[in-house]
């Protein structure tokens, strides 16, 4: 199992937060996946420069679907960071196995946007993201919302109570 950690973070590469996780879990490199960032070479270069001592690859979803099987087959340990649960859903639908050494899908910051519902500190989800989390949960992935390793956390099951309040 070459994935040591799978995370959703709408900042994609968020310097001090990613390096904090990299102290907790083995990390020989970070595969970050977002169509928008991967298509913007200048932004991609800025994000790669934010982490000097760990190699970072920025892929589109299509590139990730092609390359992740090789990453997973590797003997090294890699982090996978997707911009949103929709990103990870696309990977799972394409048959990518997101099981990892951390044994969960971790969720970091998801900013408030129009139409989003706040479920935790700096964590908000849109309808499409809710569907994606439901899909990932139905695939059997445990999903935890936790910004940094020492912080408090809650699960998608906990969050569902906030997004779908019982009448």
């Amino acid at each position: 199992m070459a994935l040591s950690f799978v995370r959703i973070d709408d900042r994609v590469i968020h310097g001090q937060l990613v390096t904090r996780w990299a102290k907790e879990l083995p990390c020989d490199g970070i595969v970050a996946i977002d169509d928008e960032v991967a298509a913007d070479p200048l932004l991609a270069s800025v994000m790669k420069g934010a982490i000097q001592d760990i190699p970072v690859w920025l892929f589109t979803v299509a590139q990730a679907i092609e390359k992740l099987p090789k990453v997973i087959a590797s003997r090294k340990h890699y982090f996978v960071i997707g911009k949103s649960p929709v990103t990870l859903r696309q990977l799972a639908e394409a048959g990518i196995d997101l099981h990892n050494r951390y044994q969960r899908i971790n969720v970091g910051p998801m900013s408030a946007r129009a139409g989003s519902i706040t479920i935790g500190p700096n964590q908000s989800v849109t309808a499409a993201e809710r569907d994606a989390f439901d899909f990932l949960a139905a695939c059997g992935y445990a999903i935890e919302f936790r910004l940094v390793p020492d912080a408090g956390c809650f699960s998608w099951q906990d969050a569902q109570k906030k997004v779908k309040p019982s009448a």
Partner: protein
Amino acid sequence: MLTVIVATHGPLAKALLTSARMIWGDLPRTHCVTLEEHGGITAFQQTLADVLTEAVCHSSGVLVLCDLLSGTPCNLACRFAMTPGHPAPVAVVAGVNLPMLLMSAELLEEPDVHQVARHLIAQARDTITGFRPAAPHPEIF
């Protein structure tokens, strides 16, 4: 466990904590004390003494992060730190910034507050940097 106190001129300490929580989530055992223009030095001195006294009684060490070397918050924190007889040691660092405050959250379980202060200064120094593009790495995938 250590306790962290951020002490600054004006609202900086409070704002640093607000900003840090936005990025990091909750920061346990972390407090702020601000020297307000209207409250004056006497009120600040009293509040700082109260917060520090409470902290030394309930911690294995107290780390005070001040904004400015030889500013009033720093001077008063150092004076408290050097007063003998506290039940726990107090270390004072000047030049607090956001990366330093975030890093302090990882060090609360360390046993030696003075060592934590040295470590934090070294780490925070590295975060003050100009942007450099990442060195190209081999496209192994």
